């Protein structure tokens, strides 16, 4: 599929270790700054669609803010699934503990999928992201 580069933001807008979300031609994309190298990945977590730019970027490892699933931002590869059930010492309120057992069964089947990545480049102080061109359906 053909791609073309689209301006996302200025280089200085994303600090090292930071991330920012953009909607580029209808695609939700997160751009992260790994020590001056910029990487772009799908915005939605491969586990339950959490907004990844609100998570953390440690080296090249992106951690989702929702359930802590982790991805390699350079490849989009899922590195681990969500954090496990609550193991803290403070008891959870009954309203949380007594959730329907069926929900647990459903959640057990949720798999963490790898994320798509997009090529990036820096030109004239701007971060550009390669967005695939959508196949255009022929007009009737």
């Amino acid at each position, binding site marked *: 599929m053909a791609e073309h580069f689209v301006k996302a933001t200025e280089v200085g807008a994303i600090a090292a270790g930071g991330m920012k979300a953009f909607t580029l031609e209808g695609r939700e994309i997160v751009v992260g700054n790994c020590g001056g190298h910029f990487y772009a990945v799908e915005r939605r977590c491969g586990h339950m669609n959490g907004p990844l730019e609100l998570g953390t970027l440690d080296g090249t*490892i992106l951690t989702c803010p929702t359930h802590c699933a*982790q991805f*390699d931002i350079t490849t989009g*590869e899922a*590195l681990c699934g*969500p*954090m*496990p059930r609550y*193991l803290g*010492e403070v008891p959870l309120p009954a309203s949380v503990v007594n959730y329907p057992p069926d929900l647990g069964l459903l959640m057990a089947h949720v798999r963490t999928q790898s994320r798509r990545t997009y090529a990036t480049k820096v030109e004239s102080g701007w971060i550009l992201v390669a967005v695939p061109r959508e196949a255009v359906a022929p007009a009737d």
Partner: protein
Amino acid sequence: MNPESRKEALRFFHAKVVGPLGYRFTPDTELMDFLLEQEVILEGRHGIPFCPCQPLRHDPVKDMQIVCPCIPFHRKHYDALKRCWCGLFVHQDVTDPSTLSQLPPEEVGLG
């Protein structure tokens, strides 16, 4: 998920924790590779990379004390051994981990 990628991620995160504590990964790369692989298996099963050489008690408090790297929970014992129980981490001044002995807590004054 690819176990090799997860092993690398665990190496990355563990190194950041154990370095400031005065420890590093064992220079025995074969052992390190094996132990990290076991951690990845345990993480896949339980969601947490527990120490591969310790049994789970199914007591949340006790089990959290063997989440790798468990150095902060057992520091006195490890400082005496110059390694952690499974040998994944050694003191930063250790060059040959095969010279280190496993001693029970009682023998290092922690009984």
